[in-house]
């Protein structure tokens, strides 16, 4: 999986969990592969984080904890983590 593929899956998971693509504060940045969005800015609650994890686990086959999402700090950080781990798996 490439960085951009991973990024797209994360954006879709965030949208699924938080309706992020309909939020004018984040929608443009999430759609633009050259921009990044920090999770801390998104006010994602713990249930949304676990829903996001669930969708990413289904899409990638990896185990992805909400804690891992938090530690990656941003959409691009998580995309790098996912494609890095899928290459080494």
């Amino acid at each position, binding site marked *: 999986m490439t960085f951009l593929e991973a990024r797209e899956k994360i954006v879709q998971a965030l949208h699924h969990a938080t309706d992020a693509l309909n939020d004018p504060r984040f929608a443009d940045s999430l759609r633009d592969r050259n921009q990044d969005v920090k999770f*801390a800015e998104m006010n994602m609650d*713990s*249930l949304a984080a*676990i829903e996001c994890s*669930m969708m990413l686990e289904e899409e990638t086959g990896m185990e992805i*904890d*909400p804690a891992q999402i*938090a*530690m990656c*700090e941003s959409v691009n950080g998580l995309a790098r983590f996912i494609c890095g781990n899928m290459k080494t798996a």
Partner: protein
Amino acid sequence: MHDSYVTLHRAPDRHSHFAVGATQPPKFDPITKSWIVMEPGTCERLLASPYVRLPHYSQNDAALHNRFGIDYSNLLFAYSHIPLCLQDAAHRDARRRMAEYLSGRKALVEAHIVTTVKSHLRILGQEGEVELMREVLNPFVFSVIGSLIDLDPAGPAECHLATKIFDTSLGPRKRQRMNEELGRLREMICAKLGPDASEEAIGLRIAFVILGRDSLIGTLGASLHNVLAANSGKRLDQMRYPGVPPETGVPFTERIVVEPFVDHQTEFQAGDRLRIYLQSFAHSGSARETQRIFGIGSHACLGKSVSLNMWRAITSYLAGIPLHADVISHALCTDDYTFLCPEHLTVRLRA
């Protein structure tokens, strides 16, 4: 501020962060979305504060169970019997049941600790390499929990993930495995108690496994590593063993603010999450405060006396061994975000 409070409790440099944190007021961490509380006096006040409550641990699992049909039935069953997961009268009732059960089994468990510590630690009386977690501490803890709930030690031994039920940082796949493990434990307890066993009797035993297993393994393992590292170069019978474990396997506890209040100039709002570090008591250097690793007030650890008895039984035995114990390999578990627990701790025993 530390890189990530998600894993600070197991960071190699955590002691220096606690030394700094012990002098500072709470600060908000955007990653964990929590107030980080490390100053022992503040920890103590907030643990006893009437303006905070326990988190609703079951909420997310119940929502996923209901919304997506994910089978979390055994997790939800466990939550309904663990005092920490219950509020108000339900909490008091569950806690009283556990306290009464513990009291009734106290003499038996104490006798079990005294008689079995020798067999579990005998291997340390001879020269060679020993992996303390796998060969000594884990079997000892499983055997004590087994004696407490009258179950084969294989029951608690096979609960690798189930005890991480409070770890809301773990993802859905791990939570599904937790649910499966708890299902097997539940079946084992049912088989042992027979067809007439009440849900309450089964739930109570599951609660003891969840609350006791990793907290005991972590506290004993991390404390033993602390003592061995601090006494490097000495023989086991020359080391000084503190009466209270110097590390806690339960590094922090969380609370939710129920109404706005001010604590020493820090303003908390309703809904704020507090991450209160019990580790700060362990690292305070004060014997009085070290005792507080077991918590304070209505949520203090019910298993404190079992933990202390096990620690003292272990250290008394070690204090009679005239061998050096060099730590040759040590690593902490990294597959969860709530416990401080050695994954392995290998020592070389030599004359």
